[in-house]
C-alpha cells in the first residue's frame, strides 16, 4: 500500500469517525449522568432529516445545523421527561424515540418533498464545505509531512474539527470542573448529590440536553457534510455503534475517540477495499466487508474489552427513599 492510499484511507477514516465520535460523546454525557440512551440513533436520524430539509429550503447550512440540533434536543426532552420526570423505563423510551424518528422522517420527507422519503440534493451553501487549512501551499512540498498535512489533516469540514475539539473539551468539563464532578456523581449515586443539596433532576436534564446537542450536530453532519441530503435510514446503525464504542471506551472521552476511530477505520476500509482481491483469499464479497464493523462490534463487546463497569446508577430513575 503506498502512502497515498494510506492517506486517503486515513482521510475517510476521519470523515466516517466524526458522526460516531459526536454520538459517542453524546452518549457519554447522558450515561455518565445516569441516563441510558439507546435513542442516539433516532436523534441523529431526526437531526439529519431536519438539517437536510431546512438547509435545502433556506439554502443555509448553518440554519440546517440549528434545525438539526433543535430536532435532536426536542427528542432529548421527550427522553428526559419520560425517564427523569416520570421515572419511566429508559430503554423503552429510547426504543420509542428510534421508532418515532425512523418513521416520521420518511413520512414527513415524502410529504414535504415528494421524492420517496428523501430530501433533494444539497449543493453550495446548503452543505458544509471542506476547509483548507492555512500553509497547505508552503508545507505541501515537504516530503511525507506535506502530504500528511494536506491530505489527512487539512480539507475536512468544520464539523470534523469541531468533533476533534469536543474530545479534550469533554474531558476537561468532566474531570476539571464543578459541573463535571456533579455530573459524574449523579450517575454513580444520585442520593449523594441530592443530600448535598443539588437538584438531581436539573443536573440530569442538562446532561440529556448536552447529549441532544451533540447528537444534533452528528445528524446534521451526515446530511449536510458527509452526504448531500437526507436519505431514508441514513444513520445505518451508527447510533448503536457509538454506544458500543462508548462501552468499549469505558465511558471515557479519549478512549471513546480511539474506539470511534477504529470503527471509522473499519468502515473506511470496507469501502476502500470493496471488490479488491485479497492476497491468498481472493475476491471477498462486498457484503462481508460491509458487515465487518458490526462483526467487530460483537466480538469486541463479547470478550475483548474486559470488565466494563457502567456508571452505577445508569438506567435507574431516582426516587428519594423513605
Amino acid at each position, binding site marked *: 500500500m503506498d502512502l497515498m492510499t494510506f492517506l486517503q484511507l486515513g482521510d475517510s477514516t476521519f470523515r466516517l469517525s466524526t458522526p460516531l465520535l459526536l454520538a459517542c460523546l453524546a452518549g457519554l454525557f447522558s450515561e455518565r449522568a445516569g441516563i441510558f440512551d439507546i435513542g442516539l440513533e433516532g436523534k441523529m436520524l431526526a437531526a439529519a432529516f431536519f438539517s437536510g430539509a431546512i438547509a435545502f429550503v433556506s439554502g443555509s447550512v448553518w440554519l440546517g445545523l440549528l434545525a438539526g440540533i433543535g430536532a435532536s434536543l426536542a427528542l432529548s426532552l421527550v427522553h428526559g421527561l419520560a425517564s427523569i420526570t416520570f421515572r419511566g423505563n429508559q430503554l423503552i423510551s429510547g426504543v420509542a424515540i428510534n421508532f418515532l424518528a425512523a418513521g416520521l422522517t420518511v413520512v414527513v420527507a415524502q410529504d414535504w418533498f415528494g421524492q420517496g422519503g428523501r430530501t433533494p440534493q444539497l449543493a453550495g451553501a446548503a452543505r458544509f464545505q471542506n476547509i483548507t487549512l492555512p500553509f497547505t501551499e508552503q508545507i505541501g512540498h515537504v516530503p511525507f509531512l506535506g502530504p500528511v498535512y494536506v491530505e489527512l489533516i487539512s480539507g475536512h469540514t468544520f464539523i470534523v474539527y469541531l468533533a476533534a475539539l469536543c474530545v479534550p473539551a469533554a474531558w476537561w468539563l468532566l474531570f476539571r470542573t464543578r459541573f463535571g464532578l456533579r455530573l459524574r456523581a449523579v450517575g454513580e449515586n444520585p442520593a449523594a448529590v441530592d*443530600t448535598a*443539596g443539588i437538584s438531581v433532576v436539573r443536573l440530569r436534564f442538562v446532561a440529556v440536553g448536552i447529549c441532544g446537542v451533540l447528537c444534533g450536530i452528528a445528524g446534521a453532519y451526515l446530511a449536510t457534510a458527509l452526504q448531500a441530503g437526507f436519505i431514508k435510514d441514513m444513520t445505518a446503525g451508527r447510533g448503536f455503534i457509538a454506544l458500543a464504542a462508548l462501552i468499549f471506551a469505558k465511558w471515557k472521552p479519549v478512549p471513546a475517540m480511539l474506539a470511534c476511530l477504529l470503527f471509522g477505520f473499519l468502515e473506511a476500509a470496507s469501502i476502500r477495499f470493496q471488490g479488491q482481491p485479497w492476497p491468498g483469499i481472493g475476491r471477498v464479497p462486498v457484503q462481508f466487508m460491509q458487515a465487518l464493523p458490526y462483526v467487530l462490534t460483537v466480538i469486541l463487546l463479547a470478550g475483548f474489552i474486559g470488565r466494563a463497569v457502567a456508571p452505577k446508577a445508569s438506567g435507574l430513575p431516582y426516587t428519594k427513599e423513605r
Partner: protein
Amino acid sequence: MSTPAIELKGISKAFGPVQANKDISIRVMPGTIHGIIGENGAGKSTLMSILYGFYKADAGEIWINGKKTEIPDSQHAIRAGIGMVFQHFKLVENFTVLENVVLGAEDGALLRPTLARARAQLKKLAEEYELNVDPDALIEDIGVGMQQRVEILKSLYRQADILILDEPTGVLTPAEADHLFRILESLKREGKTIILITHKLREIMEITDTVSVMRRGEMTATVRTADTSPPELAELMVGRKVLLRVEKAPARPGDKVLEVRNLSVTDDKGVKRIKDISFEVRAGEILGIAGVAGNGQSELLEALGGYQSATGTILVNGQPIDLTGSKSDGRTRRDRGIAHVPEDRQREGLIMDFQAWENVAFGYHHRPEYQKNRFLMDHAAMKADCERKMERFDVRPPNPMLLAKSFSGGNQQKLVVAREIERNPDLLLVGQPTRGVDIGAIEFIHQQLVALRDQGKAILLVSVELDEILSLSDRIAVMFDGQIMGERMPAETTAKELGLLMAGIRGEAA
C-alpha cells in the same frame, strides 16, 4: 436557660394513611448529645429527614438557634448548619474522599482550587477530631468505619454545628463504634450539637446526655439519660414491660448434628469467601457465629442452605450431604432436616408480592399434607395450616390472605421463623433473626429459638449483633475474612475480646 440549638414544635407528617410523625415537639440544647430511640417504623428517621429537608412536614415549626427556619430542601438545612450522616452512606464509591467531601460545596466552577483548599481543611479537621482519612483514597477501597468518617467530614466541611447520625453503629465493629463515640465526644467538647438516632439501648446509655423515646410516630418521653435505665426506656419504646435478657437454662449438648470439615467457598469473581473452616454443632446447643457483616457468614449460611456451591465436607447426623451434585439443592437439604431462616427475609425468605399462606408453604409445598391429589394442591389445607402457625407465633394481623409485604418487619420474620421451626428440623440455620425487628418481636423470636434448643435441636445462629450472639449462644465462633478466628464460651468472654477477634486481632489467649 440558653436557647436550644434545635427546637421542633408540633411536627406532623403523614405518608398516605400512615401517620409517621404525630405532633412532635423536642428541644435540644447546644453542646449536648441527644438520643432518639424507638423501634423500627416509630418515625425517627422521618423526623430527622424533615429536619434535613428531605421531606416537608404537614404541620409544625422548626427553630434553629432561636430562629424560626424553613427547611424546604437539603441545601437550606446545610445553610442552617445541619449535617446528616445517613444510615446508608451517601457517598460516590469511585470518587476519592476529597471529591466526596467537596461535592455540592465547591468554591467555584473549577475543581483545582476547591480541592486544594479542601485538602488543607481536612488536615485541620483530622488533627482536631481524630478523623484521619487518606484524602486521595477511593471510597470503594476503604472500610465502612472510614466511610462513616468521610460522612462526618462532609458535614464538618460544610461547617455544620448540628450533626444528626442515623443508626451510626449498625455497620461498625465494636472498636470502630468506640472510636466513633470518641469522635462524637470531642465534637461535643467543641460545642457541636449531636442527635443520635438508634435502637440500641446500650449506646443511648453510654453516650447521650438526654434521650427522647418515640413510639408509633409519637414522642412518648424525653428524659435525662442519667435519670433513666434501659428497662425503663425499653418499656417506653414498646409500651409494655420487656425482658431484655434471654432467660435460658444451661445447654445440655448431645450428639453432633452438624459437622463441617474444611469448607471453602469461592464466589463467582474467584474470590475465596470462606477459607477452609471446620466446626460442629451438637444437638441441644446454639452455636453463635459473630462477625462484622461481609466476612463470610452469609456465604456460610448459603453453602449450608444449599444455594451456594462449596468444597469440603458437611455431615448431618453423621451422613454426608451432597455439595455440588444433583442432590445439593435446598429441597433435599430440607428433607434431610435442615431448616433455614435466611438473613434477608425480604429477598430470600419471602416473596413479598405473594400471600402469607403461600409464603408459609414455600420450601415445603411438595409435602403430602398440602396435596389434594396427584395434580392439585390443597389450598384450603394450606390456608388452615398458615392460620394455625400465625396463631402460634402471634403474627398480626392473623390473616393468611394478606400479602407478605403488608406485614411489619417483625411479623414478616415471625412468618419465616414459624415456617421453618414448625417443621421440627434437626438443624436450624438462622441468619440475623432480629434485623429490623422491633423489641417485642425480638423477645418472642429469641424465646422460640431457646425453646427449640431445649427440645434437643441444633441451632447455628449468624448475627452481626454482638448482644444477640452473647445472650443466645451456648458457644461462640468469631468469623473474620472467611476464617474462624476462635471459639469462646459466652460466660468466659467479653464483648471487647469478641470485638478484637471480629477485627481480625487475636489476643494473647488465642
